[in-house]
């Protein structure tokens, strides 16, 4: 760290405490070089401030002023887990409580797939070779923190030609306590050539106390692999959630990602798909339904590095109260990525005069044969549609619900795992009812 330029932007009082924590961290030994680089990066970067282009809208240091410490290990009763699992769906399940792997809740693991708690497989050659390669720490303060402090999380390796029938369900549950806690879930998923895998990541909080989840997921889909990923973000009302999801796609591989943000006080999602192989295809969709003073940022990057890659991106949001949402959709088409076909859309419905959305596409196109379309809408519920339904006898509240559901179904309907889809459907119904009740109260 000697010689590193001390940054004057450090506004959070607890910034230096992270460095001290790192020095005394018991899990600092394995992957020492990676961690040291990460903490040096964090030391240099500090918490982002609104002076950073990528954090324009919100001052995260204000949000994370609280001195979050590691949580003590906790156990979770089956009943507490129940709301988040799918009885009708056979899954390969791994549960983490307050950042700690909870093997008692894990299910059996079938053939052809390696699944382990990351902390147990630091020496695995694939972990050594790939961890931290996609999720670089040089510019991302929170990814740097995660990398410095990571411990538990999921490592998945699917061997070539294997189709994993049961989806892997990874649950990160925080049982919020009086002292604010932080966890750094870390996942590395590698799908070899021709393999097929579905993943569901659930991030949830129990209780209303403040905590901070700082997650990083790296996915490598090798040639012709297919990875289908769903993320449910159901953090508690005072939960802070920062997540960096980065996928790399090999030749002719396919990755679909569906992100649902329904909880949390502050949520920042970075999602990137790096199409490194010709003909690979990325689908990145998201939905958020917010109320009160929730703030949700979605920063996405679809990086077209090779020719003939289609990408599809649709984010939709419903906002009540004085909630805030930011959408930044960057599409980066490299010079050699001819015949790129990139589609991006962000649509928002504001249910309240005080809710705000800031949406911006960002296109960087260096190839000339490119089809790229993007659009964004921010509006109220369609008054004419509402009247049309009412004129047919449907009461206003019901008419509203129908229109909002139709808006959301556009994303929910794309989730292919039926039990997850119907769970989401219920969650979103409840959520919309709640938001509407607060608007009309």
């Amino acid at each position, binding site marked *: 760290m000697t010689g590193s330029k001390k940054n004057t932007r450090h506004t959070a009082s607890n910034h230096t405490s992270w460095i001290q924590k790192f020095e005394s961290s018991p899990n600092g030994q394995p992957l020492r070089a990676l961690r040291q680089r990460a903490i040096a990066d964090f030391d240099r970067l500090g918490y982002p401030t609104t002076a950073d282009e990528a954090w324009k809208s919100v001052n995260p240091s204000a949000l994370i002023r609280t001195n979050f410490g590691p949580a003590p290990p906790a156990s979770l009763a089956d009943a507490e887990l129940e709301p988040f699992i799918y009885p009708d769906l056979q899954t390969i399940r791994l549960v983490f409580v307050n950042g700690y792997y909870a093997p008692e809740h894990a299910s059996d693991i079938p053939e052809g797939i390696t699944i382990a708690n990351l902390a147990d497989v630091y020496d695995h050659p694939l972990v050594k070779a790939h961890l931290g390669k996609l999720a670089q720490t040089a510019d991302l303060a929170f990814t740097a923190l995660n990398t410095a402090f990571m411990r538990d999380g999921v490592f998945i390796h699917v061997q070539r030609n294997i189709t994993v029938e049961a989806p892997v369900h990874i649950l990160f549950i925080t049982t919020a306590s009086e002292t604010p806690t932080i966890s750094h879930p870390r996942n590395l998923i590698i799908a070899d050539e021709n393999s097929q895998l579905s993943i569901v990541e659930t991030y949830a909080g129990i209780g209303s106390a403040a905590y901070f989840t700082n997650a990083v997921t790296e996915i490598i889909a090798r040639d012709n692999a297919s990875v289908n990923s769903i993320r449910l973000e159901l953090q508690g009302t005072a939960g802070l959630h920062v997540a960096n999801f980065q996928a790399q796609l090999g030749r002719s591989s396919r990755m679909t990602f569906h992100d649902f943000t329904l909880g949390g006080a502050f949520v920042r999602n970075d999602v990137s798909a790096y199409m490194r192989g010709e003909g690979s295809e990325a689908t990145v969709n998201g939905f958020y339904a917010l109320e009160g003073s929730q703030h949700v940022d979605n920063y996405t990057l679809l990086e077209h590095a090779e020719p003939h890659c289609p990408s599809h991106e649709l984010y939709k949001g419903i906002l009540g109260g004085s909630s805030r949402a930011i959408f930044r959709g960057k599409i980066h088409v490299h010079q050699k990525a001819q015949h790129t076909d990139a589609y991006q859309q962000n649509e928002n419905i504001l249910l309240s005069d005080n809710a705000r959305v800031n949406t911006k596409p960002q296109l960087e196109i260096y190839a000339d044969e490119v089809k790229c379309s993007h659009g964004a809408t921010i509006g109220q519920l369609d008054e004419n549609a509402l*009247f*049309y*339904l*009412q*004129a047919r*006898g449907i*009461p206003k509240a019901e008419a509203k619900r129908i229109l909002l*559901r*139709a808006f959301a*179904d556009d994303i929910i309907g794309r989730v292919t795992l039926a039990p997850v889809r119907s769970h989401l459907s219920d969650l979103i119904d409840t959520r919309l009812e709640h938001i509407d009740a607060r608007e009309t109260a």
Partner: protein
Amino acid sequence: MLEIRNLHAGVEDAEILHGINLAVNAGEIHAIMGPNGSGKSTLAQVLAGHEAYSVTEGEVIYEGQDLLDMDPDERAVHGVFLAFQYPVEIPGVNSAYFLRTALNALRTARDEEEVDAIDFLTLIRDKLKLVEMDEKFLKRSVNEGFSGGEKKRHEILQMAVLEPRLSILDETDSGLDIDALRVVANGVNTLHSADKATIVVTHYQRLLNNIVPDFVHVMLDGRIVQSGDKTLALELEEKGYDWIKEEHATHSV
């Protein structure tokens, strides 16, 4: 059944309807004609309860009750139906779901039992025949990507399912080819009966060859300036609206 007395209505600062008077009895078919912009749709929308329009004077009594006091959905529950001049597209809500939800909303409000999916299918198949529509429409989002003619048939389909007592058809004949016109007119005639009333707003007397009105009213600049029987429609067809405009201008001077 319906009595409109000195109805003044408009948007924000502009009055559009300047004192409409109209009485409609059960069993009657009334035609309202008039040039573009004379306020026909405004009248129709006010009767259905569109929030964009506010009533500044007058009253509307429907079956002895103050219609203007009811929410749009209550009006539907009481048997008022408006076939929209421009039916609204509702992406993501399929026609079958929409129709069944509407029917059940009416039934629930009337303390009647809801129709289940199976009974509904039987019912809707019957109604689809009336408007000569294919069952595949039921799976499509309401009005989305429908042709003009399909939208209008879909309006009549809704009318057939909801069985209103007072139907107001706002230019349901506009933009229809002759086949579609026949289908729409046949639907309206089939659904009309001695205990029901129908108001057809139209621009063209062509429709009135198929739906024979008991009364014809001519609307001009937010007023009904002339009423008569079906021969008035023929006269209008022959002489055009200019004739009535001049006539009205001389009268009011």
